[in-house]
């Protein structure tokens, strides 16, 4: 490619200036781009052998517990990163609060024994309806959340927490077994199927209330995250529709993410680039990766693909797909991560359920995961090996 990375870096200096948003420090990217700036492109077989695996990113899988069969499964794929949380049903946590030092130490030691690297907490404990809905008890939740951040960083060395702002109704789909390619099963969502559903026990409330609660949370937590060195990574709403059963959604547009980032502009307040949701909002994923990546906002990646079925964006009807067959330009996305110097955790997120598999955990079965990792790995190689001889 003529437009190599060295050129890109040169150009990007001015580009970064042009796109930096008010209040955002465009030069504070946590990504390590040193090797790029040196301008060294591998050109020989020897260089090839010495190249960073997976373009320097931490390929990871979501694994609930250390005794999961997904541990040897991941190791055989050469995937070494673990995205997990401290779930109350984990027997290691019996009698412990998940934010207590002992709980975190126990989980950390268990992962260390497997040889895998615990690199992200996705779905943190102590961030629930009290905080998101502004109910009594939120200050206690937030205090525990801050303790969790501190202990997680100090004891486990984990420096990314992926959280969301979807109270009451979190991840939602209207179909868990839509037939995809060759009869593989995928999940799907159609707003028509939920629009007439009744309100939840929490009743109806406004977007502004959610914004207010988010602001309260960020103002309390971000300064602490900065002291601790914890990268807060807000996940977009999934699905990114306007509301479900009276529960409005606010992290459902790119503009709203920009608004969120301005509430407490700080290098430790960032986001999870979940490609599926942002794409369904109608945005160009590679361009968005470059913009937010330059601003140092991307801490964690859900590398997945989707297909809109509503015929217009933002989408109100969509299906998940295999990684190679959706609407997102996956190659350009991977190239964008490489170009911004992203070195963090990246996981395939949802995958189809394939031949011979039960659909017991839609989106997280084994064969589709193998397919996804093989696919991601080749893309990572393709963006990093463009100059290497065979």
């Amino acid at each position, binding site marked *: 490619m003529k437009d190599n990375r060295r050129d890109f870096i040169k150009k990007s200096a001015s580009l970064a200036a042009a796109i930096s948003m008010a209040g955002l420090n465009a030069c504070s990217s946590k990504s390590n781009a040193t090797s790029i700036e040196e301008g060294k492109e591998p050109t020989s077989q020897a260089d090839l052998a010495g190249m960073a695996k997976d373009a320097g990113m931490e390929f990871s899988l979501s694994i609930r517990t250390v005794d999961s069969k997904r541990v040897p499964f991941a190791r*055989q794929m*050469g995937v070494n990163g673990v995205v997990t949380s401290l779930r109350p049903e984990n027997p290691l946590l019996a009698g412990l609060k998940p934010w207590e030092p002992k709980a975190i130490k126990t989980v950390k030691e268990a992962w260390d024994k497997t040889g895998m690297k615990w690199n992200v907490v996705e779905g943190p404990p102590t961030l629930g309806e009290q905080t998101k809905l502004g109910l009594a008890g939120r200050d206690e939740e937030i205090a525990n959340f801050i303790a969790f951040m501190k202990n997680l960083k100090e004891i486990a060395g984990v420096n990314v927490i992926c959280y969301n702002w979807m109270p009451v109704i979190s991840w939602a789909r209207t179909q868990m077994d839509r037939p995809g390619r060759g009869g593989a099963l995928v999940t799907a969502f159609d707003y028509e199927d939920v629009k007439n559903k009744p309100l939840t026990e929490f009743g109806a409330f406004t977007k502004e209330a959610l914004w207010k609660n988010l602001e309260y949370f960020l103002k309390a937590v971000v300064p602490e995250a900065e002291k601790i060195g914890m990268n807060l990574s807000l996940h977009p709403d999934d699905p990114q529709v306007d509301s479900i059963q009276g529960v409005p959604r606010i992290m459902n547009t790119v503009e709203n993410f920009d608004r969120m980032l301005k509430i407490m502009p700080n290098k430790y307040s960032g986001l999870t680039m979940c490609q599926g949701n942002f794409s369904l909002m109608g945005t160009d994923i590679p361009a968005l990766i470059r913009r937010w990546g330059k601003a140092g906002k991307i801490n964690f990646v859900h590398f997945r693909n989707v297909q809109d079925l509503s015929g217009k964006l933002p989408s109100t009807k969509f299906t998940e797909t295999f990684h*190679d067959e959706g609407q997102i330009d996956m190659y350009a996305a991977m190239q964008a991560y490489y170009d911004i110097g992203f070195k963090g955790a990246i996981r395939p997120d949802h995958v189809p359920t394939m031949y011979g598999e039960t659909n017991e955990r839609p989106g997280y079965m084994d064969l589709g995961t193998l397919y996804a990792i093989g696919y991601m790995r080749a893309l990572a190689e393709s963006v990093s090996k463009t100059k290497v001889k065979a």
Partner: protein
Amino acid sequence: MKENRRDFIIKSTALAALSVAGLSGCSESRSKENEKRAGLKSVGATSQVEWPVTFGEGMPKLCVLADRDASLAEMRKLKQLGVDYVLVNGPKMPWTEKGLREIMDRFKPEGLTVINMMIGGFPNTVYGREGRDEEIKLLQDSIRAAGVAGLPVIEYNFYAHRLMEGYYEVKARGGAGTTAFDYERGKDAPHDPALGTPQTAESLWNNLTYLVKAIIPVAEKAGVRMAMHPNDPPIPVSHGHAQILATFNDWKRLLAIVDSPANGMTYDCGVVRELGEDPIEVLRYMGARDRINHMHYRNVTVEKPYVKYQEVFFDEGQVNLFAVMQEVFQQGYQFGLYPEHPRELDYDREHTGGTVMQPGGIKYPGGGGYAAQAYNVAYAKAMMQAVVSANGTGAKV
């Protein structure tokens, strides 16, 4: 499978023919247009191809091995991998137009096109024995049938004996199995009296030349391309029998017997590296002559060329598989591309009762099954999409 790949290799000595609408026949070289389309344009960091990427006629066809009697469920199992093409072991000779059409037509409703059938069952031809003319007649008839049925490629091979004893399993990351080969393990293996007098290289070349000269003109006329699989393992002698398709020079000599695109080979970037040759150089040599009629995509780590090597995960060998894929598109290659030899994973061990058979029903030490194949096929597909995206030359353009 009734006729697995090992059988194919043992029986083999043969071939056949075909061609399909949209696939260029033997008599025509690739058009300039295709070359232009596959050319590497300089583009920016963001690709300009509409996604999901689809592949045009002048591009490689990602394929996997299917049982020719595959059930509907088995076809869909393969379709899930994201392929539109399959290769199958052909039926017993002589092939007939009707017989081939029945096989090919069964796959069509599931969106699968048979792009290659392997042919075997001509030992007398390999050994230069009585009965070879009858075998060659069967081959010629089969090739003609393939041409009429619209099968574009027939793959064959030419072994007097294949040294399976040299393969053994080496555990790799997380306890996954890889397939290692060491010539020392089988170098002095005695020849099997049942296989007759050990074949010298000279006699095998005579026999191969006799075969090629007899079938290539038929294939050319039928619009079918023959793809000779190289000897793999690429060692000089197996159980006393010479191997004559085990070096790059051997391959050049084969291609020179009859100067026709119908007289082509299976390009296997893994085998090329096993020889210590440069995969890109060999690809360019064959591609420039329009002699690549099928392709195997895999990776290998070589300790000593021809003698000691290990078939590894696609992502960890010595072959730069992205560079290979770029060159494949650059050459305008438009036939089958088979991501081959999956590694043995726990998933396959647990779902097959312990003995993991590779696609096609072969057992290699450290070889894997469907789960590992899912990894390989996705990897190959991503490489294809990456090349098309980097080139900015999607099929929809």
